[in-house]
Structures are given as structure tokens and as C-alpha cells.
């Protein structure tokens, strides 16, 4: 049976893992390569890196992080942040990424979805959508860019459908309202998108407890769950999340209960 994937995400800045709220007051939180290895050993079904470096120069550090991780971690690796064109896409894939997530650049240049999926296949194009609640929008949610700071006047459901039609193989859906709250994923938003697109939807933003993962799968149809801080700070382990999922009848890939 196909397992629901549990995906830890690491924010990377100038080649180092960082922690901070809404990308401010960043604190160094270690070596992303070592952390990815650890997550992989602990049962992560995929690893996600989000590069939040501000300049192209610093982004080169990300390619080194990807290639070192790919040498040691034999699980799928998704990388996003600052991917503007086909050349950036190729750099990431050649370094060892399996999937590339695109966000702002797809909003400003929707052709990038077509071009990248034509060139590299739908399976490696992940459309990342940062959604905020906005009652004026037909679906009730608006697409934002730049970590939720810039509004776009684009409806989230319409954008998700367009992205899939243009070739996205997966959607990474973040509720900016829930992000960082640890109060649970946005079930309404996740359900709306997962029920209306044909590709898998990764739920993101708001995970605070293994039960949040269970809920977003059972009640909102997520194919995968992504979380950053709950795993990073050791509040909950991948094992405890999977155990809770299994107890609730969700198929998972087995992992051992190792001490972190």
C-alpha cells in the first residue's frame, strides 16, 4: 500500500541551517548535511531544503549542501528557494536534487512550470504555494510570495489547477496563517486543494503534534506531511509521528525507534 510520506524541512541560509520566525532573527542551527543524514536514518521519507539566502552568490553554497547530502542520503531530496529559471533548475538537479520546488518565480513567470516540466519531467516540478486567507478571493485564499509578504491577487485554487495543467507533478501547500503557530495544519485549505487537483498535495504550515499530521491526512486528504520546527527542536520525532499515523490506520513506511 502506498505510504503517506513524512517530510522534514530544513531552512538553509548561506549553506547553514537556520531557525527564526518568518525569516527574521535567524539563528545558526547547524550543518544541513548532517541533519539531513540524521533525518534519513530516523525514517524521513523525503528531505526538503528551502534556501532562504538573499543573493545568488550565497546560493552557490546550497549546491554544495545538495551534492553532499545526495552522497549520503538515499531518499528523495526536494530543494526550493530562489529558483528563477531553467539554468537554476538544472544546477539543482545536477547537484543531486530529485525535485525542485518553485514559488515566487512561477507566479511571476508561469511559463517556468511548462518549461521545467517539459525539460525535466512533471515528477520533479513541485509547485509551492504560500496561501493566506482572503475573503475576497473565490476560494477564500490568496497566493502570496516572498514568505507571505507580497500579495498577488491570484486565487489559490485557480493557481493550483493551472499549475497542475501546466505540468506541476506535486503541490507543496503552505498555510501562511498557520505557519509557525503549531496549532495544526489548515484543514479547510488542504482539503480544498487536494480534492480538486489530480496530483499529490503536501500539507505544510502549523504542525505542532503528531495528531495534526493524522488529521490533515484523514480529514483533508494530504498525500504527505511536511514539518520543520517540531522535528528540528526534537519536540516530536519522525517515529512518534509515524506511530500515531499507523495507530489511526494510515499506511506508513516502517522506521525504527532510534534515539535522536
Amino acid at each position, binding site marked *: 500500500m*502506498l505510504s503517506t510520506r513524512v517530510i522534514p524541512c530544513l531552512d538553509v541560509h548561506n549553506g547553514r541551517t537556520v531557525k527564526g520566525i518568518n525569516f527574521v532573527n535567524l539563528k545558526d542551527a547547524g550543518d544541513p548535511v548532517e541533519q539531513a543524514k540524521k533525518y534519513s536514518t530516523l525514517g524521513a521519507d523525503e528531505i526538503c531544503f528551502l534556501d532562504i539566502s538573499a543573493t545568488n552568490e550565497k546560493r552557490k553554497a546550497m549546491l554544495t549542501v545538495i551534492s553532499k547530502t545526495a552522497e549520503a542520503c538515499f531518499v528523495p531530496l526536494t530543494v526550493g528557494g530562489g529558483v528563477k529559471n531553467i539554468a537554476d533548475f538544472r544546477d539543482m538537479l545536477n547537484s543531486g536534487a530529485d525535485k525542485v520546488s518553485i514559488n515566487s518565480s512561477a507566479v511571476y513567470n508561469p511559463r517556468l512550470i511548462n518549461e521545467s516540466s517539459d525539460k525535466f519531467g512533471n515528477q*520533479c516540478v513541485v509547485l509551492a504555494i504560500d496561501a493566506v486567507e482572503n475573503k475576497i478571493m473565490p476560494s477564500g485564499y490568496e497566493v502570496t510570495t516572498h514568505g507571505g509578504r507580497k500579495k498577488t491577487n491570484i486565487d489559490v485554487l485557480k493557481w493550483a489547477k493551472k499549475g497542475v495543467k501546466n505540468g506541476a507533478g506535486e503541490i507543496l501547500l503552505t498555510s501562511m496563517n498557520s505557519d509557525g503557530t503549531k496549532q495544526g495544519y489548515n484543514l479547510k485549505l488542504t482539503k480544498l486543494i487536494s480534492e480538486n487537483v489530480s496530483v499529490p498535495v503536501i500539507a505544510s504550515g502549523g504542525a505542532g503534534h503528531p495528531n495534526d499530521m493524522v488529521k490533515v491526512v484523514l480529514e483533508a486528504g494530504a498525500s504527505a506531511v511536511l514539518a520543520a520546527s517540531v522535528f528540528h527542536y526534537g519536540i516530536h520525532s519522525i517515529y512518534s509521528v509515524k506511530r500515531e499515523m499507523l495507530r489511526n490506520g494510515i499506511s506508513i513506511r*516502517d522506521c525504527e525507534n532510534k534515539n535522536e
Partner: protein
Amino acid sequence: MNLVIIDYGSGNLRSVENAFKNSIRTNNLKVTVKVTNSLNIISKADYLVLPGVGSFPDCKKGLQKIDGLIDLLTNQVIYKRKKFLGICVGMQLMVNSSLEKQNTLGFGWLNGKFKKIKTNGLDYLGREYKIPHMGWNNLQIKDKNHPLLKNITENEQYYFVHSYGLENYEQDQIKAYTNYSVNIPAIIGKENYVGVQFHPEKSGNSGQKFIYNWLKWLP
């Protein structure tokens, strides 16, 4: 022994190389790994690996761009009986044809045709099946005594990502299926050549077991 991973511009060569090198290193095997599109080096290889991500027609085009490569592969694998592994689209290319985007011919080493996966009904959680079939799934092992499946159980999972599945195949060419609403061939092969729909290079320890079995396999 020397192993060649065939570079025809398709995707995740680095991951495949890393995973094979890791297996070779951890098991102290005497195998060297080269990633190349040189016909000369390919013709001298002992083992051949053909990766593939993206669409079937694009991968076929990529192979055709290297003059003489497809004929050389058939010569090396079918006539010289070199050990061969096709991964994902590399596996799909081993059969007669695929209907992805348009009807495109494969190498025709095995019978069958790739068609869009037709799921029916709802999954165990009452949801529509998503396409691509993406994520970790179990094998249903058909050929239990095959050396490639040594120490691999049906409880283990492998990483799949594909929208097309093999149909019109011959039963005895199927070593294992996976189930996603329907049974989809996951390991196919005959004599010295085998193809896997999943990505062993991305399937953690279970993938490493398969790669080790393949490296040790004496067809």
C-alpha cells in the same frame, strides 16, 4: 568488474552513481563505476545501468542523439549477454512501446506497452487515487527465488514516481508487482537483463539491498 551508468542527458545520474558507489564501498566489492556516453567505454563495460527520469519520448530522443547507442545496447545486452539494469524510464525503454504523449517504440527486449495508470474506485482512506503514483510502496513478489530478491520482503517499501504502468506483458517476465488500485509490474526481466519501475537509488536501505543483490547477481 567495471560498471557503466549511461549518460544520455536524463536526470539523476549523480544519485544513481552515489547509491551504487555506496553499496560497492560498504560491501567491499571490486567494481569501478563510470558515468559516460562514450560508446567505446560502454562496449568495454561488464555491467550496464540505464537510468531515466522525465518522459518516455524525451528519454528515447536523448538516447537517439548519441549515434549508435541504442544498437550498441541491444548488442551488448541481448547478444553479448551483459548484466543490465534499467531504472524507471530506463526500465520502460526495455519493452516494445509506450503511449506517453505519443506512441513511441522502446528497445523491444521484453513484451509489453506502457499505458497511463488506470485506477478505479477509492483508496483505503476513501480518497481518489492521485497520479503520479508517487511515494513509498510495497512489492508483491512473484519470483520468490530470484537472486535479485534475496533478503527482500514484501514488508519493505520502494520509492516510486510514475504515471504509466506496463500492460500487455508476459507473466513470466514479471518478478514483482506493486499495487496502486491495480497491480503494476515493479520488477521485470529475463535472463541477464532486468528493469525496475521504482528508484532503488532513492529507496533507502531497501534500495541498497536491491543494488547489492544486482551487483552480486550472476545471470
